């Protein structure tokens, strides 16, 4: 209790009264005693790989995976049956509806972050954004705790989205930083030696650069400088990798490419499958544009089209190649959207209830976990917090959820903070 009282002393006198009440009610109180789960051992992993599809902007849940047919503001979108009795989703996702037997929908997601940047950060790292430290994302945690399966390809790849995204290596070693591919078509840029340079010449040049840098390295033995050394090593391994073909989409038969669709997202899904096949353990794809403050239904209808087509193709493909059991497919987003329609025919941010999806990787398909009330406003039962969601992914991968890892500055962190995995999903 004294810890909490000290915290109060730091706050400004102006808000003393408000805050003392809140602190006593539990805000700021952390479970400082030994957690009940301290003795839990590592679960046997059901998934080796993760394909994480991140929908940035906040996907409207009642227009997709959690429709509310009798709600006044449901709008023009209809509800359809799926191939599992009792589960219905939005008509915008017909192909996924036919594959519901592979999918688990979590309708009771809830977050405390209602703005994009903090919401995105929270979803990727399970921690609230702070100016003082960068937390690692799941891909970095996976590679750091459980290692790579392919020694020459990166263990963590991100396709699409901004280069400055959250959920990178954070305070973990920079070698866990995801390789960011701006577009799935182009393959890896600059991956071949220049035509005028052979293997021997490249080695000579690298040696010369090292020599030129000798006194510089001695003078400035900084973490960022060493990180460049690491990155050159990884780059050279990659250049010499026999698995570089994984990045070349043109090696896929046309039929396959057509099934995934011609969209950038479709190609990203196909690339993700190829990478996983070649041993890349964590691939994140970004599909943006979900921040539908204006013209919600028009935009969602448009956005769900590649989502529906390509994710269905991906699930089928993984299944027929025997990869679905060991590959966890995740569809995540930072928050949902308001059940009310605003004056621009749009929906606003809504973190208190939203939907996410899990498939493969040991997840029992054909189920819905948790539910929301009749309008989609709040969680009705089995709420799943963002850390819980990430803990579930970590659990599937067999990562030690309770292990405390210290950042270089000595602060303690866990893979999914205090999240608990939803074992009912498996």
């Amino acid at each position: 209790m004294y810890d909490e009282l000290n915290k109060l002393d730091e706050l400004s006198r102006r808000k003393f009264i408000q805050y003392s009440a809140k602190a006593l009610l539990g805000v700021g109180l952390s479970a400082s005693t030994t957690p009940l789960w301290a003795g839990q051992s590592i679960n046997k992993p059901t998934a080796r790989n993760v394909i994480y599809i991140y929908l940035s902007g906040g996907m409207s849940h009642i227009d997709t995976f959690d429709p509310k047919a009798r709600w006044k503001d449901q709008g023009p979108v209809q509800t359809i049956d799926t191939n599992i009795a009792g589960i219905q989703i939005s008509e915008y996702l017909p192909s996924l509806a036919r594959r519901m037997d592979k999918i688990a929908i979590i309708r009771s997601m809830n977050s405390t972050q209602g703005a994009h940047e903090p919401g995105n950060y929270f979803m990727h790292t399970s921690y609230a954004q702070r100016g003082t430290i960068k937390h690692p994302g799941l891909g970095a945690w996976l590679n750091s705790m459980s290692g790579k399966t392919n020694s020459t390809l990166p263990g963590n790849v991100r396709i699409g989205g901004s280069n400055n995204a959250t959920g990178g290596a954070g305070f973990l070693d920079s070698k866990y930083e995801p390789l960011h591919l701006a577009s799935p078509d182009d393959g890896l840029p600059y991956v071949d030696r220049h035509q005028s340079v052979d293997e021997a010449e490249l080695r000579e040049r690298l040696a010369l650069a090292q020599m030129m840098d000798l006194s510089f390295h001695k003078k400035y033995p900084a973490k960022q400088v060493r990180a460049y050394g690491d990155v050159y090593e990884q780059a050279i391994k990659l250049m010499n990798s026999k698995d570089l073909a994984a990045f070349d989409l043109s090696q896929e038969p046309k039929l396959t490419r057509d099934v995934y669709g011609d969209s950038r997202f479709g190609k990203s899904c196909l690339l993700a499958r190829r990478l996983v096949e070649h041993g890349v353990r964590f691939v994140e794809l970004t599909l943006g544009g979900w921040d539908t403050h204006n013209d919600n239904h028009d935009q969602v209808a448009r956005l769900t089209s590649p989502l529906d087509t390509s994710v269905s193709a991906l699930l089928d493909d993984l299944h027929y190649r025997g990869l679905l059991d060991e590959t966890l497919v995740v569809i995540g987003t930072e928050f949902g959207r308001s059940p009310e329609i605003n004056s621009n025919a749009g929906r606003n941010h809504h973190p208190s209830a939203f939907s996410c999806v899990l498939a493969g990787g040991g997840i029992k398909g054909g189920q819905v976990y948790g539910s929301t009330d009749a309008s989609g406003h709040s969680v009705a039962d089995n709420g799943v917090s963002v850390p819980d969601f990430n803990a579930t992914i970590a659990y599937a991968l067999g990562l030690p959820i309770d292990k405390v890892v210290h950042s270089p500055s000595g602060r303690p962190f866990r893979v999914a903070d205090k999240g608990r995995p939803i074992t009912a999903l498996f």
Partner: protein
Amino acid sequence: MRLPTKILLKTGAYLLLTILLPTSASARIFTNLAGKTIEADLVSMHRDQVTFRRTVDRKVVTVALNQFSAKDRSYILAQKELGLLSATSYKQTQPDVARVAKRQDHFGASEQIDKFLAKYWKVQGVEPAPITDDATYLRRAYLKIIGRIPSYAEAVHFLNDSSPHKRSELVDKLLESPGYVSHNFNLWADILRAKTTGREGSRYGGVYYIPWLKDQIRRNVHYDEFVQSLLTAKGYPWDNPAVAYYLRDFGMPLDNMSMTAQVFLGTQLQCAQCHDHPTDVWSQKDFYELAAYSYGLKTGVNINADNPKLKEVARRLREAAKKQNKGKLPGNQKPSPVSAGREFLDPLRWGVVHTERPLKLPHDYQYDDAKPNENVAPKVLFGHQSDAKLHDSTDRVDSYVDWLIDKNNERFTLVIANRMWKHVMGKGLIEPVDELTDESVADAPKLMAYLESMMIALDYDLKQYLRVLYNTEYFQRQAVIDNPDLPDDYHLEGPIFQRMSSEQIWDSIATLMTPDIDQILNTRYKGNNGGIQYATGQKPAAAVYLDEWSPQKITSHITKMSDVYAAYFTARTTFSKANQDPALKGTPELTKIRKELNESKKAWNQMLNPDLSESDAGASMGMTMMAANFSSEKGKHNKADDRWIKGIRRASELQSPQSNGHLLEVFGQSDRMLIENSDEKSNILQALFLMNSSQTNWLLAQRSAPVLEARLAKTPEAKLETLYLGFLARKPSEAEMKALLPYFKEDPEKARQRIIWAMLNTQQFLFIQ
């Protein structure tokens, strides 16, 4: 199409001015063999190719020496003999230092800062880092002040200069250079999330905003005035580019307010938008009370209601549509004068207007101090609340802006003083710069207080403030590692050791190819939204007509347009259906339908964007690099390489931000979606580029400026020194000379390629010492 007289007059006036304005001091009239004359400045000369810059349009041209008249030829050769005409330009790219005002005034302040730091070090029990040598200072000054490495010629000039005041003279010169604008633009574009791409670039005014921002920096508009322009802006972006500040967060006025508080007051209110802030003192009500000042400003003009002229036009268009459709109003989706009008008048929706709409607390407001849906009365976050009567939205905005930029607003001054310190030294005295709380304490509180008082005394003149900082001894000390994992180990012993930003890396490579890169400016950005073209200096047609035509005229014009629109609309629907029909896939019929669509689209676009443009006299881009003009060079000429060289611009002159996959993005440029979102992390793609690109393997080894200079050097030692000065801004060490000279003598061509590749792949190239 008849050009409106206003535009004709403007063009005429501009042409007149360019003829009458005094030209550059060293410009001269040159004559060619055919007798044609031209007024120009000499830029450089390489072998027999003379490069000069035309005064009339600032265009750079290269012509063989034998094309000039005999008199000109001897003049040019004499200039070269005197050493005033180098192979890579120096003199003509440098601003006139004599014009710099009152250099001496600020020295007292710089010394004062050093004194505060000396006291701080004593208390902390640390020794400061030593003062750097000239070579290190040279590179750092260029990178920190104008955002690029020095060119070979600039490096030689500085290192050979024996003036005792050369460092402060360099500071003055760099602050006046166009490079200063380019470098500071990157900073402010990151902070303000200014974009030229997408919706933000077109309908939300980016194409007008970015040149305006650069202009504000160029004219060194005082910071408080600058903030005031941004926050009191209203109207359309082509009339008032500052309006893009509000349009950037179209439809999200509360988000915009929270960005304003973060950027200008260093106060993070985002959490308080939805509930009482969990870790800071702000309540949700506090946030709403502040937002109530500017909530009346609406982004988005309701064409049918807000503007009486447009309201009239809308009414008439409805009449015209009914007439065409047997007395009934056609549906929204059908082509008609109404829908054509909607497309054509679209730009007029994106503007900022004052309204009297009240700000209400949200319906789920959960605290006891007020009721949900209650109107919120405006109240400032802290400090002095003016009790002047606020009659309308304009009053409210003015009142809140006055409070924000007031000298007594402790956070306003603190944030900018700290931010500029960070810009110069690499780390703020308080970090993070935009997340102040009541517990925020500067590392050196007396110094911070002094900086704040200096900012006020300088009346928020940012350039002068920067000048003071660049002239401190502290800025000249060796860089110090600040380990982000061990933040308590840094005691301000010196400026921070950091990697170049992605713009600095890109701009440095650009400088290696083109020493006068600072002169190559993009003054005209273009964007497109819904078929309407937006371009710098150009109003959309709808805006021009709104100003100049009567409602009847506008209506009859749009009604005429609606036939073209109907044709386009039909073609679009036909194509969309046909494209989805699997039976038609790849057939010539589909191709024919697509062709029809493209033609009707073209016709419709021409109606949307009639040619009202002013003459291009003002909007030229400076032209190509010298290197690309040397057709006499031996070696392969790859088309892609040539195009790359031709298109090189500084990052500030490219689209903001650059697209995915561009080198700027690979090296960590901010996506300008979030505030100051750039990073300096290493990644594999950077290493792959540096190792395997044609730039580092070929282009820079064959056609960069230092290489051209090195070819003129007489001895291998001199050549090596030239390369080092050009790429690393320093002379090679004894050990390096010893190791590299043998190669050079053995196979100079191969050695040169190897050495340059190696220099570009060192870490010392990427980091700022």
